[in-house]
């Protein structure tokens, strides 16, 4: 292997790690994947450090210059499919079924790909809002408000991701909008709806389920820094949801 091959290997490994970390994989898995890809080089030192928002990987041998790559990772939307796709590619690469260049190109493709269309996402948001509303004790009469508030979450998240706001603001804004819409519809339509159930059902789109899961996994695997960061993330997101809803409730208390 030449120096440029090693460079490409390091790039591939860090790209794989970046995609996984962005999509919401736990730190242990990201570290493991990068380590496995880099170990294909058979160099003496292969080191990987992954923390909540950064990746550092280094390979070196006594007879060559060390290659160290670091990456600042900005969290994006959760994308569980990408994690599995990257895993698949790294598994194939490590068992020598595909070449290094092929692996790099496949990873590039994965990075750009989206599995479901926007329309599917919108439909899924409506579905989640309505069905959770029913699970929590609502009825079919809540169909309209649930669907509208699910739609509002989809669009407010879309707006916030375009403006690149912080996750805290996104959650708070979405929770605020959805509660306002539920209240307004409750006031506007003639039949009675289960307003609380509509709001909680739609809130399920915003609760930090992934953050709680990842926090416990990271802490279990002794990645305390990332684990603590995720725990804080879960707490902050829950707080944001509570705050957004609370503001809406507070305003509506005076109007209605």
């Amino acid at each position, binding site marked *: 292997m030449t120096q440029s091959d090693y460079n490409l290997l390091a790039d591939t490994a860090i790209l794989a790690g970046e995609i996984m970390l962005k999509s919401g994989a736990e730190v242990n898995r990201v570290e493991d994947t990068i380590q496995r890809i880099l*170990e294909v080089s058979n160099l003496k030192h292969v080191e990987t450090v992954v923390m909540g928002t950064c990746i550092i990987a280094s390979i070196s041998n006594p007879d060559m210059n060390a290659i160290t790559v670091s990456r600042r990772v900005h969290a994006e939307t959760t994308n569980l499919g990408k994690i599995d796709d990257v895993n698949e590619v790294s598994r194939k690469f490590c068992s020598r079924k595909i070449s290094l260049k092929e692996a790099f190109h496949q990873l590039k493709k994965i990075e750009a790909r989206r599995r479901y269309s926007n329309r599917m996402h919108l439909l899924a948001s409506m579905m989640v809002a309505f069905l959770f509303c029913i699970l929590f004790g609502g009825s079919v009469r809540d169909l309209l408000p649930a669907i509208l508030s699910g739609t509002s979450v989809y669009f407010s998240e879309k707006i916030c991701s375009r403006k690149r706001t912080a996750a805290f603001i996104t959650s708070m804004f979405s929770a605020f909008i959805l509660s306002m819409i539920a209240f307004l519809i409750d006031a506007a339509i003639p039949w009675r709806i289960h307003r609380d159930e509509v709001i909680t059902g739609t*809130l399920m789109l915003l609760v930090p389920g992934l953050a*709680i899961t990842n926090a416990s996994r990271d802490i279990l695997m002794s990645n305390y820094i990332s684990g603590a960061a995720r725990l804080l993330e879960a707490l902050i997101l829950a707080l944001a949801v509570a705050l957004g809803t609370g503001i809406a409730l507070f305003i509506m208390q005076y109007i209605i």
Partner: protein
Amino acid sequence: MSSFIFAFLAIIGFCVVFESPLKCCIPASLIGATGWIVYLALGRENIYVAGFMASVVIAIFSDGCAVWLKVSTTSLFVPGILPIVPGTAIYRAVSYFVKGKYSAAGKNFVDAVMLSGSIALAIVIVDYVFYLIRDQMYRGDRSSVKCKTGDKIDH
């Protein structure tokens, strides 16, 4: 039965929101709906125990299925666990707080924290057991993936 079906469909919705792979959607939803039934069945007496047991069930099934389907545990577990994540408790806490009923708000807040804690505890326990099992199973596997020295990566 109807709540099983509704939970199943709701979790399929979540699978799409989280862009989980197509082959995960059905298993994840079945697992999640089973967990929700467990939660409902036990929830009348003690919601913490119910949350814990439901999370254990979901975690065991999703860890098992993850090995079988060759996907990450997360993509099965996260959509499945969401019905149990305490969104309702958070909302109730806020709504009581706004109304000035602080003790009811405090109770719901504690519920939310404890329920999240029991989910985390379930993940930790089940995951660690599966981690040990997998470690035993694949002990030889990892060294065979590593290639011999001097091997070249082909282009």
